[in-house]
């Protein structure tokens, strides 16, 4: 036994090179060979889209909570409103040639006391990457994609979000050309808060619509596991 043995089994990997993987590499390398783009441009852009996060969208919502005119702009023209949070869907860094058209059209869905929005992509995993970063794994699962449109309240309850019966749930289905974020209602207990404070509580999950902002909750993805208050004996 070596010193590097672990108690756990290694995660499974696909130990096989498919024709599709080979085709992707070959197309990319030939394009580089022909000077259609450079290897460095390709790597830089891939890194860029992989390292985007949800903070710009959170700030957009926080600004809208503080400024009714800006909120109106968000609802009417999400692409223009995004510029206020340094996201230019037209000339994004680092290449300055813009994001692809298939996610240029951003729509901001504003919740109201009687309406709750939630976003899905039933076809695949379309997601507003420039302003929200990479989608979480669960967003891409057939479980979420298929069931949310049929049983939205049940799926939301599985995220711990109980939507009252008198609140309508509206599911927005993303597609190749239109992407959505949710602007949740500003929670109670945040009077007098600054834009920075408000930004912290608008988590990624709130922007997808499977959670709502709460004072004190600044992340829905890294919560520690809590012991059950009433554990089932076994």
């Amino acid at each position: 036994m070596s010193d590097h043995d672990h108690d756990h089994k290694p995660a499974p990997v696909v130990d096989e090179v498919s024709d599709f993987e080979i085709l992707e590499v070959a197309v990319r390398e030939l394009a580089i060979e022909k000077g259609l783009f450079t290897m460095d441009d390709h790597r830089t852009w891939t890194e860029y889209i992989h390292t985007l996060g949800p903070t710009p969208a959170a700030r957009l919502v926080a600004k809208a909570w503080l400024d009714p005119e800006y909120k109106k702009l968000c609802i009417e023209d999400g692409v223009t409103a995004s510029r206020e949070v340094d996201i230019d869907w037209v000339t994004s860094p680092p290449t300055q040639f813009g994001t692809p058209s298939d996610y240029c059209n951003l729509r901001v869905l504003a919740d109201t006391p009687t309406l709750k929005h939630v976003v899905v992509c039933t076809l695949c995993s379309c997601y507003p990457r420039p302003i929200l970063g990479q989608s979480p794994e669960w967003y891409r699962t057939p479980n979420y994609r298929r069931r949310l449109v049929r049983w939205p309240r049940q799926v939301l309850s599985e995220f711990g979000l109980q939507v009252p019966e008198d609140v309508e749930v509206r599911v927005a289905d993303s597609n190749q050309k239109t992407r959505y974020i949710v602007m949740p209602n500003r929670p109670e207990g945040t009077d007098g808060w600054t834009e920075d404070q408000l930004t912290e509580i608008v988590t990624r999950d709130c922007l997808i619509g499977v959670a709502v902002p709460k004072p004190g909750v600044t992340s829905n993805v890294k919560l520690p596991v809590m012991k059950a208050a009433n554990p089932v004996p076994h």
Partner: protein
Amino acid sequence: MSDAVDDETEFYGDRKIDSKPIPLLDAIKEKGRVWEDLADEYGVTNPDPPWKITLETTCDLLAGDSCVKDYDEVDQDTTLLPSLDRRWEEDALSDGRYKDVPFPERQLLSLAHSMINRGLLDEAELEKHMAAVEKRLNSG
């Protein structure tokens, strides 16, 4: 939705899409193993193949500034494969020639199809390079 009128032409709306068969891509369609099958076999849970992100980047880089201008204003000399053209062609091919191929494999086949039709790639050259890539990736 596209309407196939013969084996080589489809219409997407009023746009004519050249969908004539490309033997190399048809062979990959027939014998290539798609990610959902590989993931099932190997017990992998990530829903997308690792190459999806680089495929998207390739599409992004070929699109140039075609998304920032109205379609009629796109400078064809500087935009190698306009986004809307690629998406229309992908939609038509996904609904026709590559209908039975799942996403994102069909996006990849459609991209290669569009590039070959435009002369950005040559089929024989692509086949030759694929053989070299296969040898390299399987050499470890």
